């Protein structure tokens, strides 16, 4: 478990999720510390991405899904009846595996979220666009072509545009679902650097298949297997002396 001095931002309690008959998450209890990077690892189909998606209710739309137990964000159950999902997703943003910029200009990609939240002032939008692009470490590369299509950028740049777009609405938590798996090592390292800088202001929760990435940048690691949370602890301990034999077998490549 994580250091007692850490403050929790998201906590799940006895979280179970079913896709029809498939029991995809089993009694997940976890406390995600604020302003830290938490990596979720495990073999394909272990439930780590499903778990990530429950944190901003991205599974709600999946047909036949059934969720019980609780996910508390700052102490409030995000599956409570009165929760406004749009406002929840504003606070808990997500970046996907494949960069998915909107087919519009770089500027409009970033301004899209703030506009839907009612910001109309050009000056205010300019400010948000610049800040978000700077935070996503891509401002210098695109500042002279803000009105060009985001689709003309490289994969690594597009992914940073997506991160900037997520940051534009000032989230508290950033969920990253294998956000570097399709990128070359240089783009990957830029995004890793970025995640480490962002954690001073945000909480980052990332799903990764790359053990070395989890080791390089995460503070805490959670290992999922067959829908269960097998082990959760500080990353260095998990990778030097894991407490559970199944964790050891997975991270040393004996299965998965």
């Amino acid at each position, binding site marked *: 478990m994580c250091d007692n001095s850490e403050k929790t931002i998201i906590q799940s309690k006895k979280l179970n999720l079913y896709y029809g008959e498939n029991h995809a998450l089993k009694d997940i209890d976890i406390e995600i510390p604020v302003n830290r990077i938490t990596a979720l690892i495990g073999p394909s189909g272990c439930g780590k991405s499903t778990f990530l998606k429950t944190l901003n209710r991205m599974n709600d739309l999946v047909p036949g899904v059934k969720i019980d137990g609780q996910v508390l964000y700052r102490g409030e159950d995000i599956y409570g009846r009165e929760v406004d999902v749009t406002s929840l997703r504003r606070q808990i943003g997500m970046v996907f595996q494949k960069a998915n910029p909107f087919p519009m200009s770089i500027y409009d990609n970033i301004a899209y979220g703030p506009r839907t939240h009612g910001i109309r002032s050009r000056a205010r939008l300019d400010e948000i666009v610049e800040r978000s692009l700077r935070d996503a470490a891509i401002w210098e590369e695109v500042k002279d072509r803000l009105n060009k299509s985001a689709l003309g950028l490289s994969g690594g740049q597009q992914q940073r545009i997506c991160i900037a777009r997520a940051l534009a609405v000032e989230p508290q938590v950033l969920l990253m679902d294998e956000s570097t798996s399709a990128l070359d090592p240089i783009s990957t390292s830029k995004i890793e650097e970025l995640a480490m800088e962002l954690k001073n202001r945000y909480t980052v929760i990332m799903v990764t298949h790359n053990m070395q990435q989890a080791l390089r940048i995460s503070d805490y690691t959670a290992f999922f297997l067959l829908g269960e949370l097998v082990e959760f602890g500080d990353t260095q301990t998990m990778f030097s002396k894991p407490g559970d034999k199944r964790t050891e077998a997975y991270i*040393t490549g*004996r299965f998965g």
Partner: protein
Amino acid sequence: MRNNFDRQLRLLGSEMREMGVLCEDAIALAAKALSENSKELAARVPPIASALDRKERDVENICLKLLLRQQPVAGDLRQISAALKMITDMERIGDQAEDIAEIVSSMGPGPEPETELLSAMARSVIRMVTSSVDAYVSQDMELAGKVIAQDDGVDAYFEEVKKSLVEIIVREPDMGGYALDMLMIGKYFERIGDHATNIAEWVIYSVTGEHKSAELATD
């Protein structure tokens, strides 16, 4: 899935065992050279020490290659990093056997050396070295624990050696030079025992992730 990696780890194990055998040979030969006061036997120790130096390089290469290419974690990482630490101790054991041999080869044609205690000491440290390397190869904590416990016995032998040498000096003041040589040899055997203890401590780290000096594990 990780056949190649496992093959490399087995190769590491067998190289470590070979290095262990070279250590035993070096100590045994130095001890025999001493008890027989034989310069010929003593002259055979330095080549073994050189072989140990080469083996140290070989094992280092295997370990660095594994670190680079396999990026090991957990038990694999501990096994490889323990090996990297252990080979330094094994190489030092070779040097100390060589130091003993050098003293033997420069000893004058003095009295029949009184080496019963030193031979017993040599037997103890050879056992320690063998067991510590076996413990590594079989990842056997219990055996490593026994090695560490044996070190007290070796230290006690060294105290006895000192006492008997003081008696010799008192009895026969002319034997001062001889006594100093024997003291040095005793000290080298005692150091070899310490190196075997270090090796055993790294075996325990390799198995459990805990090293005697706890700060190593957490920092």
